Each structure stands twice: as C-alpha cells, then as structure tokens.
C-alpha cells in the first residue's frame, strides 16, 4: 500500500507527491482552484492556479493583488513528478475538474459539477480515471432535474402573469452561476425589464467580460427614483428575502431557484410564492452516469448526502468511501 495520491488534511485536499492543495480551506503555498464559489475558493494562499474563463470571478473573490495563474482547459502543468490538467466541470463559468496523475494512476477531483447543458459555461467533460472524487450534494434518487429550458419557460410564464397584475417578480438565486444561467435561459421576448441586486450585478459583468452573451440588465441601485418595477424581473441573492431592501417593491411575487425546491416541504416552508427546481449540481441519475463513464474503480465523495451514495456504490461492487471536507457548508448553494 502506498499513500493515496490525494488525501484530506487539516488544510484541504492535498497531493503530497506534487506538493499542492485542491480548494484548500486554509492558506497554503500552492492552491489549485476548481471554481469561484466561496466554499471552494478561499483567500490567503501564496499561489493559485485556475481555469482561464473563471479568472475574472476569482480575482474578484480573492482580491486584485492575488497571484492567479490562468490555465487553459486540457493544458498540462507539472508539479514535480505529478502532472495536472484542468477540464470543464459544467458547474459555473470557469469551473474545472482537476486531473492528477503520477504516471501510475489517474485521479480526478470533480469539484462541483453538473451534466445538464448550460449556455454560460463549457459542458462537463468525462475524464477517465482510476479514482474519482465526486460531489454528492444531491445524492438521493428523489433528485432528478427537469430540463432547465422547461423551468425557464415556467418562470417566464409566471413573470408574465405577475406583470399583467402589476406585481414585481423577484427570483432569489445564488448570486454566482445560477443567476447568470437563469438570465441566459429565459426565453425572449421578456415581459419587462430585468433588474439585478447589487450582489449579482458585478458577477454578471464578469460573465459578460468573459464573452458570455446575457440579456440587458439594470442594477437596482441605478434605477430611477420613480421606477415602479411593476413588470420587472428582479434577481437577488436569498439573503435579500425578507430584508428592508425588498420594501421598494409593491406586492412582489417571490420565487426561489434551487435544487432543494424539488421537495415540497422545502418549497412551502421557505415562504416563497414559487419554488423552481434548477441546480448547478449533478442530480442522482447524472451522478451514477458520470461515475460509470469515468470507469473509476474507486469513488470518494464530498458534500452532503455522501453516506447513502457510498453504501449504494459499494453494493454495486465499486470501492467507495466518504472524504471529510468543508465543502457545501453554505446551504444556499444548491
């Protein structure tokens, strides 16, 4: 038995042979980042590597003066005897799976990923490997996603109905990734103008700067004093719900976009008018499909519902085990 190529330490997932960390949760010397969400991209490390399309987002998150090496998808990097390459994960703009090999075996750390198409980022690429480190945020068979286009059409229809009644449509969604995907998926023509919360607007600008086509939006802070928002769609982070910020809208109709909305109890308890099932994460069928396609003999899981997935995979004859990580601690991330 030799030491695993990648293993969790106090600082994060660590590759000892190449002396680097993947998505460390404490400051380290060398950090390879899968994507710009806060539970994966933490500041304070000396050197960062990340996929090029997400550089703008990362620079915003980690600070202007942080040194980040942009890497093309598929480009190889050498860390001592270890070869590393980044491949699209289909999660958000610039999200990457990290392929790590020492010449004997291939490991892939997926970060967060999904299999559904998403106009705002490169599609997930299957990377054959021996050991696959997969997220397990939604690893129960109840989580099967409807098509994003159908959900977007549903949102559009609801927005239209609200606009007819003169009610502002407010969709709460994670500010990075989900919000931009929603914008891109909404069918045209729109029933009214689109406004973004101050937390969503700059990230959306980063998407545009990276060449992603998104509909025209305005920022709430820049709205005219007499703006009545009666036919508008507003995209805001969940933290804005129930805050004084909401007072500017008369009789808003509120919706929440998240994979968790698949469960009726969650939909109803949240107190939003509508719940829309749309997620940046892989669903149960996608998870099993991916594991099979990678050909991995060993599967290590991070996030959420790891126990059930591990047991299921073991019963299916794979070698599976949970990894202790600090990912997915943010419950809005779904």
């Amino acid at each position, binding site marked *: 038995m030799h030491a695993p190529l990648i293993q969790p330490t106090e600082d994060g997932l660590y590759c000892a042979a190449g002396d680097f960390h993947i998505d460390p949760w404490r400051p380290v010397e060398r950090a390879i980042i899968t994507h710009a969400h806060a539970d994966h991209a933490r500041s304070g490390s000396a050197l960062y590597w990340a996929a090029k399309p997400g550089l703008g987002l990362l620079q915003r998150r980690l600070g202007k003066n942080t040194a980040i090496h942009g890497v093309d998808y598929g480009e190889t990097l050498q860390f001592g005897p270890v070869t590393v390459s980044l491949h699209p994960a289909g999660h958000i703009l610039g999200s990457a799976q990290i392929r790590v090999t020492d010449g004997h075996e291939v490991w892939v750390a997926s970060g967060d990923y999904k299999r559904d198409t998403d106009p705002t980022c490169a599609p997930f690429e299957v990377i054959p490997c021996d050991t696959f480190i997969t997220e397990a945020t939604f690893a*129960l*068979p*109840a*989580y*099967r996603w409807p098509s994003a286009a159908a959900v977007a059409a549903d949102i559009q229809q609801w927005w239209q109905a609200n606009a007819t009644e003169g009610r502002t449509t407010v969709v709460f969604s994670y500010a990075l990734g989900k919000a931009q995907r929603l914008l891109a998926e909404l069918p045209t023509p729109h029933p009214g103008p689109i406004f973004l919360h101050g937390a969503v607007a700059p990230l959306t600008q980063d998407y545009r700067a990276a060449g992603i086509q998104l509909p025209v939006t305005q920022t709430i802070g820049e709205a005219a004093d007499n703006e009545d928002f009666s036919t508008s769609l507003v995209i805001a982070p969940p933290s804005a719900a129930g805050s004084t910020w909401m007072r500017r809208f008369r009789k808003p109709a509120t919706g929440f976009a998240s994979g968790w909305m*698949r*469960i*009726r*109890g*969650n939909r*109803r*308890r949240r*107190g939003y*008018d*509508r719940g829309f099932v749309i997620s940046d994460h892989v669903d149960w069928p996608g998870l099993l499909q991916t594991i099979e396609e990678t050909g991995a003999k060993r599967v290590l899981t991070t996030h959420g*519902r790891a126990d*059930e997935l591990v*047991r*299921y995979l073991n*019963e299916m004859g794979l070698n599976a085990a949970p990894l202790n990580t600090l990912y997915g601690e943010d419950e809005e991330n779904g």
Partner: protein
Amino acid sequence: MHAFAELFQTLDRARGTNAKVSAMAAYFSQASAADGAWAVYFLSGRRIKRLIGPTRLREWLAEATGLPDWLVTETHEHVGDLAETIALMLPEEIEQADDQRGLAEWVEAEILSLRDCEEAECQSRVTSAWAALDEAGRFLYSKLLTGALRVGVSQTLVERALAQASGHPQAVIAHRMMGQWTPTAAFYSGLFSEREEHEDASRPYPFFLANPLEADPAELLGDIHDWQAEWKWDGIRAQLVRRGDAIYLWSRGEGLIGESFPEIIEAAETLPADTVVDGEILAWQDDVLPFAQLQRRLGRQRVGKKLRAEVPVRLLIYDLLEQGGEDLRARPLGGRRQTLEAIMAGMPPPLMLSPLVMAADWQALAALRAESRARGVEGLMLKRRDSAYGTGRPRGIWWKWKIEPLTLDAILLYAQPGHGRRANLYTDYSFAVHDGEQLVPIAKAYSGLNDAEIRRLDRWIRQNTRERFGPVRSVEPQQVFELAFEGIAASSRHKSGVALRFPRIKRWREDLGPGDADTLQQIKALLP
C-alpha cells in the same frame, strides 16, 4: 385526474384564502358531478380507508425503481412524505402519460377496487397506475392511497368555494354538507340544486364558534349588559335535533354520537316536536366531572348499564336554533334564550339548562371567572345579547374568556417528523419530567413554536440524536420547554400516572437546564 392534480398544485402554491377559494370555485364550476363529489370529499379533509400500508408501497417502489429497499427508506425519510417520495423517485417517462380518466373514475376503478384484490394483483395495478400518470398525477394518486390530502384548505373554505360556484349562500352549502353523505354525483348535484322547503331532516345547523378573548373585556366589549355570560364547559359540543319522531345527536366533528349517550336520546323525546338545541355534553354526578371521565363514554358501539351508572352524563343546553320547525337563528340571542328557558322549565335530567352567570360589572364577572378551575369549567363564554346564531367564527359576537392555562417545565426526550409542509422537519415532540433519578414521559406536543424556532430545534435534534426507532429519534435530555395545558387527571394508561389535557409548547426555555425541569411529584400535586 389531471384537472384535480392541477387544482391541487394551485392550492399548494396559493397564498391567502381568497386565491384558494377562487381556484376551487373554478374547479367546481367545470367538474363533472362525479369528480366534483370526490373533490369535495377529499378537500374537506375526509379520507378513504387506507388500503395499502407504507411498508408495502415502499417495497413496490423499490421494485419499480430497481433500487434497494434501504435507499427507498432513506429517501423517504429525507423527503418526509411517502406519496411525494414515490412521485419524485420514479423515472420521468414510464409510459406515455396521457391518461384521460377523471378523479371519480380513478378513485372508484383504481383505488377503492384494490380492496378486493390479491396482493400480487394489487402490486401490478398500483405499479401500472404509477406508469400511466405524470409526476403530479402520481403524487396525487399515491396521496389518496395513503391517506389525507392536507393542502391547507378547511371545510369552511370548500363551502365558500361551493357557495361561489353555486350561487347559494354559504350557510345553505354548509347545511347541505353536514352529517353523513357519500361522494356520489347525486350528492354533488344536490349541493347545487334549488333550495328546498324541507332540507334533510337529520341535519344539524353549522355550529357557531367563539374567538378567544385576550384583551380586557371592559375595554373591548363595552357595557356588560349587552353581553350574556355563561360558563365555558369542558365537554363535547353537541346539537340535539328532534324532527318528527326522529332524534339525532351531532358532535361538532359532524359525527352522530347518539349511541354513546343513549340517555340523552331517550330524554329528547320530552322535547317539543321539531326542536333543535345547542349545548355541551358533560359527565355529571352531582356536579361536573373531569373530561377524562367523559372520554370513557366515547367511541363505543354500545354503552352498557354499568358504564351509564359509573359515568352519568348531561346535556347542558345553551341555545335554541329551531322551534316548531322554524329556524330561529336570525333572531337575537336574548329572545332565543327566553324561549329556551320556557321550554326547559321543569325538564328533568339529563337535559338541563346551562345557567347564566350574573354579574353587575366586568370586575365582578372577572372575580367569578377566577373560580373557574374550582368549578371544573374552562372560564366564561360571552355572547352578544342582540346577536344572531351565525356560521363559522366571525369576530366580535361570541367570545371564550378562558382562564390562564396551567404550565410546567419539561425536557425534550423524543422527536418525530410532522406532516404536510413540515414532513421533513422534526416537529412532533415528547417531553419528560424528573421522577427521582429517572425521566418519565409526561406529554406530547405538536405546536407552539414559530417556524424559525422549529428549524433551529430540528437542527439541534439531528445533531443530538441518541437513538433512532423508525421515524422517532431520542435526543440528549438537555432542552427545556414550558408546556401549557388545560387540565390534569389521574390515568392508569400513562406511565407517569397522569394525563394532561391540550398540552402545547408555551416557550422554549433556553435559559433553563435539564436540572431546572419539574418533578412528577410537583405535577401530581396539581391533581384535583
């Protein structure tokens, strides 16, 4: 089925009762009489007998999805509701989901008919039903298989919607929906039919209900002489209907309860013909007995001589709704009371006039209210003298002015998930108090916390679970809650030896530790 599934989804999403009422009214206006009847049946909270238990359904779901039983169970626990678990777990398209059959056909041909099926045929029929429906249809079908719908509408809202759809006043609809009926097309058409001179003779009137009075009556209610005060009895609200030779005793839950109280039925023969009175059934020997005694009379097919002797009952009558076949409800309470007193003069037990409570001013009345616990009553009822006997629970006409509840501090011991929108949250709790070195369960409570507290407690429960018994978790005995309750009685069925009446959570006492909780000895000292 599709139209009803759509209605269900609209109701599930709707916020505010008006939106719910108009969605139901729209459905009722276009539904066939057969479908409408079943819709009224389910929406008003009625249910069909459960034909297939959850264990079997989970097994069949495991087979249908090709997943192991334990994974189905884990998913069920995560989702919280079995019908929803079924809808979510089955793959999107099994067959072309273009079933055109209506609700009635589904219920009668696909659900009720399972009653006569062998196990294997049952499974194959349920599995094919799942395959023939889309996700919303599967959810609804499975919900009907497993029990109640729970979609946040009450019978009153259904009545409002039917009133809207039919153009009849709500009271007429409410009256037509009372009592025993079967969900047939004829029943549904009857709801919409022209009002008849003589509606079904067995039916009681909709019960008129009181609101709790939390303010000072002197400030809120004005002159005490505008109000009639009575004791608020802790018994069973009932209407006694005598029309022609027939006599019916109805509870508020619209059950016929005459069998449990034969002496009241017998005594009703002394009432004048075509009379309907409203009152409270109480266990009574010289004076009122605790509710626990009355409970012994409930839910029995036959009440024998022995029990009749041990727990004698009375009907304390406080209102007259019909006299000589004439509906008196629109008349002022003062007048109804006078006529009632004339009818009741010299009437022997078990029928008895509920006495008025006389006081010169609010202060004197408050002093009488303070005697409630000693008198075995829950407080006072205050009714406007000039008021009609209405329907539902409008504010400002009848008030219940209850005494403060009793309280105790107990420790959270067990928790289990709730239903409906709280199906994946731990919301049903069991509490214990100290008994020497032991903790002994004292009460269960389901309500009293707000949503934020429930979520916080749910998280705490998950992180502090000791053991799991099916859906129930035992937790570290650390959290203390103040429970309020209306009464206490000795009970041989409870390990603690006492039974609390209407226990509920008053407050989460995060300022207290488990050592601060009450002891069984302290609680037993409250026994009457």
